[in-house]
């Protein structure tokens, strides 16, 4: 096989292209999965029609509909900020994918500070949400944006702390190191600590994605769609749908990497290692996505003050205790 020699710039270009393809396709697939899972859970008839067999074209039809919508910018809106906001929301979502290892060598960039980067980039979107809310010149959008910012501060901490627990266990911030360190998925071993950290992380992730039961910022029965009330067509898709789906896919990837042992088999048993890492990753990934999708039809929405109380009075103390427990484990076990 002839060796293909690529310059650093060419490699970068390929990587960027891959990311730019994977994310929208992933978001579409996520949207499709959501349609189907919810249709089955909720006895919905609509998503079973478009395209004939099992409603395979639902997501395409949905996307096309939004593509044809008029792009409206309200008169009172701050035009520049209003148009930039969807990009400010969506680009950070793309950037998360840089450090998620799908297999041992299938990673765009193995940064030394992988987790740190993940968490830092993951929360930039909120600036975009604030931009959208403020520039829309709409009171509902403003309320939604402020709720979103408050939620980010409250739920970023549990995520960071639970990720810190993993980093302490692995003794590294690099995502590859973290996966390699997990002989058993972290959610199983060490007993207790990992599982609780995983639950805290999942809760925080659902809140970061602003999905039910933590979807106060976009609570459609209260404040229409919060910050995205004034957005139409593709801008709406990018700022709300793709961002939410992209976040979901990204958080599922992060969850798999940090807590479920990434591309490794579920138990360290050599025959299982014949199965390629991509498949293991895919299976665990599908499990995470289903978990996220399952939560939505099950719960009502919590109230803003309850949401804050839950984060500050329960999740954060629990994750602080987890950090202590993990410290003890690392030192004495």
């Amino acid at each position, binding site marked *: 096989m002839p060796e293909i020699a690529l310059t650093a710039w060419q490699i970068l270009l390929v990587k960027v292209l891959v990311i730019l393809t994977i994310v929208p396709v992933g978001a579409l697939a996520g949207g499709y999965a959501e349609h189907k899972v919810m249709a089955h859970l909720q006895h919905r008839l609509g998503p079973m029609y478009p395209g004939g067999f099992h409603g395979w074209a639902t997501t395409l039809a949905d996307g096309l509909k939004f593509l044809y919508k008029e792009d409206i910018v309200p008169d009172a809106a701050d035009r520049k900020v209003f148009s930039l906001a969807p990009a400010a929301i969506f680009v950070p979502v793309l950037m998360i994918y840089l450090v998620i290892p799908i297999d041992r060598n299938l990673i765009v960039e193995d940064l030394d500070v992988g987790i740190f980067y993940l968490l830092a980039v993951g929360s930039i979107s909120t600036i975009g949400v604030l931009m959208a809310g403020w520039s829309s010149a709409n009171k509902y959008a403003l309320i939604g944006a402020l709720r979103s910012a408050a939620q980010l501060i409250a739920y970023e901490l549990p995520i960071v702390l639970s990720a810190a627990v993993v980093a302490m266990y692995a003794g590294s911030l690099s995502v590859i190191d973290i996966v390699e360190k997990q002989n058993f998925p972290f959610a199983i071993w060490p007993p207790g600590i990992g599982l609780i950290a995983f639950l805290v992380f999942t809760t925080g992730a659902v809140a970061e994605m602003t999905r039910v039961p933590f979807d106060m910022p976009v*609570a459609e*029965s*209260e404040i229409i769609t919060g910050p995205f009330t004034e957005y139409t067509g593709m801008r709406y898709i990018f700022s709300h749908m793709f961002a939410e789906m992209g976040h979901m896919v990204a958080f599922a990837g992060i969850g798999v990497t940090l807590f479920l042992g990434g591309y490794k088999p579920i138990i360290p048993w050599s025959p299982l290692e014949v199965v390629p890492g991509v498949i293991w990753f895919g299976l665990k990934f599908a499990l995470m996505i289903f978990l996220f999708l399952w939560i939505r039809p099950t719960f009502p929405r919590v109230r803003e*003050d309850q949401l804050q109380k839950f984060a500050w009075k329960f999740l954060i103390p629990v994750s602080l205790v987890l950090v202590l427990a993990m410290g003890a484990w690392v030192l004495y076990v």
Partner: protein
Amino acid sequence: MAVAPGVRDASEVAEEISSGRLVTEEMLLNVGPQHPATHGVFRLLATIDGEKLVDAEPVIGYMHRGYEKLVEQRDYRQITNLVSRMDWLSNIQNELPLAMAVESLMEIEVPPRAQYLRVIMCELNRILNHLMFFASFGAELGAITPTFYAFREREDIQMAMEAATGGRMHFGFFRPGGLKEDVPRGFIAQALKGVRQVIDRLPDYENLLLGNEIFKQRTIGVGVLEKEVAYSYGVSGPIARGSGIDFDVRKDEPYLVYDQFDFQVSTAPNGDCFDRFWVLVHEVVESAKIVEQAFEGLPSGPVMGKVPRVVQAPVGEIYVRSENSLGELGMYLISDGDRRPYRLKIRTPSYNNVSALGHVLRDTFVSDMIAILGSFFFVLGDIDR
């Protein structure tokens, strides 16, 4: 630096923060007339301070269609179809008090079969209505699943009523003197199947919402309507019963043949959103009981009494009331001997119920506002007529 009027400069704000009382501006938020939580065109002038709702004033009238005036131009047979459109979720029950009013003015004897079928239709309609509010209340709290389940359960009953009346929404089935026609073959089986299905599955749905911890936190102690306040606003129906008022026209002033059935009036003591919703769900069960009993005792015979060719009420006036899905529906009919009413004053339940909103909404959260609006079970057409 120039500061815009009304905006405080930094030192002032810093001083306020250090003294512990930061003065924040209140914002006027127009909820509606077009808003997902109002199910129609209902406006709420809300003054909010952050997430807190300082004051709220319901503004109605966006849907006024002038039915009270319209009915003065039409004869009694046409009116039943008109009043049916007031509350579009309990249509067939709207037709009832009008038919009863005309019947008692004209002293028409309604055959027993018609009376039984009227009870059945009304209770089926009540189940439909309550399931609809079950669906929408869940949706307002962010739980989307109950909506789809409730609509699935509604379908069988809806089909049965469609088979009997020819309409899915506007039935036009009650006439002064009885019914438009007898129910078709298979109606009983179909309706009973639908009702039993609802009863079988209701406990599951109940658990989905009433048993959910988040749901309890969102509703218990939220939007309390005290008994006295409910009395003073003339609140009736499930909302009043949720505030501990044991009043149900079906029980306290039986019309049709309601006194022959064994059913209970569900009440709850606290008057919060949870209790209102609890009452609503339990009324479905009671309605189903009535339907089953009515089918058991359904007599045979004609469904139309002896009605003269021209329906012409003699001079006189009468007030008839019935228990609509959402409360007491009253019709005050004045006749000057013509084929048309001289005046028809309609007392709709939603109108009175909604007037208590302003009181309940004060000093709550924006999210509570939606929960309270949802738990007040109003239909816009019923408020404005």
